[in-house]
């Protein structure tokens, strides 16, 4: 934890030197949000509900989608890109010589501070959506449970994305060229802009368990819009624990397989 904070501080100081990038990032977030809102207005010009989700509810999904996307670009993607370039260039040797756990070390090295604008913009949209929201379904989490369910599932969901991405990145130990992974992931993540329930069954299953966008975006959105049940939340937590164990195994297997660039 101290290690993560130290790295975070170094990265923050680094990025504060490039303040112009901040405005660029704000513009990017605003453009992305505006596009999302335009799509919503196009959809709701034609219908009252998309697969049972009303306009404020889809707005909540858009907000969560933006937030989690911000978390990915802030903390997950830069670290994964660094692992791949380290493995390719052989500098991964230095990681292994550090006296800390290698998985922890590689996961907290790089942060892109300005990407947090997406988290803030997304949070603002979430608040807006909750304020304009309309009622909840029977048997769903209510009251203080909404906030609890939201934060727990948001955290669990982000962890799941981290796990899956790290598992895929571990592939770089075997197949050195994996740059397209980022492209692929960014492409698939876009599917999270809508509740996974609208996708056909096979795709929904893939988006829930293979690429856990369903858990990362849809479940927190369900919490906000009064659709989340305790059993679904428990499923999410159980799944993340399982996934972390798998990730741990795959990572140590990959590290053992790493032969170094100079060998």
């Amino acid at each position, binding site marked *: 934890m101290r290690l993560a904070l130290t790295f975070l501080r170094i990265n923050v100081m680094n990025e504060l030197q490039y303040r*112009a990038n901040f*405005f*660029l990032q704000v*513009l*990017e977030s605003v*453009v992305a949000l*505006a*596009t999302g809102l*335009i*799509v919503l207005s*196009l*959809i709701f*010009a*034609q*219908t009252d*509900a*998309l*697969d049972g989700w009303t306009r404020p509810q889809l707005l909540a999904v858009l907000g969560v989608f933006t937030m989690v996307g911000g978390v990915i670009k802030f903390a997950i993607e830069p670290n994964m890109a660094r692992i791949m370039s380290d493995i390719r260039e052989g500098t991964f040797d230095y990681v292994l010589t550090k006296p800390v756990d290698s998985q922890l070390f590689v996961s907290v090295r790089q942060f892109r501070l300005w990407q947090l604008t997406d988290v803030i913009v997304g949070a603002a949209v979430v608040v807006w959506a909750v304020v304009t929201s309309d009622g909840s379904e029977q048997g769903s989490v209510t009251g203080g449970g909404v906030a609890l369910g939201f934060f727990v599932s948001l955290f669990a969901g982000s962890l799941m994305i981290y796990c899956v991405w790290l598992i895929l990145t571990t592939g770089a130990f075997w197949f050195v*060229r994996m*740059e*397209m*992974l980022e*492209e*692929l*992931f*960014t*492409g*698939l993540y*876009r*599917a999270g*802009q*809508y509740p996974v329930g*609208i*996708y*056909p069954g096979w*795709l929904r299953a893939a988006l829930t368990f293979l690429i856990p966008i369903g858990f990362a975006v849809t479940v927190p959105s369900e919490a906000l819009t009064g659709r989340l049940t305790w059993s679904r939340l428990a499923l999410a937590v159980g799944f993340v624990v399982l996934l972390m164990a798998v990730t741990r195994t795959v990572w140590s297997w990959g590290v053992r397989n790493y032969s170094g660039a100079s060998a």
Partner: protein
Amino acid sequence: MTATTYESGARAFVRLYSALFRLAIIEQFQYRAANYFYMIGMVTEPIIYLVVWSTVAEARGGDVGGLTPGAFAAYYIVWTLVRNMNIVFTPFGWEQRIREGQLSGQLVRPLHPIHYDIGYFAGWKIVVIVLWIPLAIVLSLIFQPELDPTVIQAAAFFVAIWGAYLIRTLLLWMLGMVTFWTTRITAAFEVFFAAELLLSGRLVPMRLMPDWVQTVAGYLPFESTFGFPITALVGPVTNEELIRGLLTQALWIGIGVAGVSIMWRRAVRNYTAVSG
């Protein structure tokens, strides 16, 4: 210029293009796995639109603005090919070209450097189209498109995708060349791409847009690069509309050629001034 030198000039031109074609095909075919992953990442975008609009169509009892789920499937599957035809040299790449001095080498070549980009990326398209075919078959089996083009439509589509490719190359060249004057241009790129997404038919078929948006889009080149080629194949479209669409493409190619050559001349003057 005598007749013979002119002829050999034209022949050199053909030779250059066929060499670039071969080079691109050989180079990019090596990266077929990378090209495929890229395509799969790209394909999620139209699938999302397709699923959303099919859901809306079903909620409305079968169609949105006359488009059924089958029509949406046809639109967004053809979309994947047109999207691939739209991939050209990125305006973000100009900064690197200028900074690393690649441009200086290109300047001493006998032909305008845009020919090298057009030739190379066109050759790449051949690889992309070959890789795209199985993907299109899988998507068609899953989403059951309603696609029944006439021979004329298919012919117009074939011309239109290459027209789209040329227009987008020229547009992005113009945008990228702004880098000669200032490198703080990324923000303008972002806005350009957002406008393009909304006004080209990439996000939704243009006829689902409000009327005033369609009017605005009529004065811009974006629809020629995306919505028009798709509609040419998917329909419904009259022969008159096809001809008008192709002429509009020709017009934008003309404007693009003029714009690129004017900007290029000024840019080069500026470039030498900087390094001189």
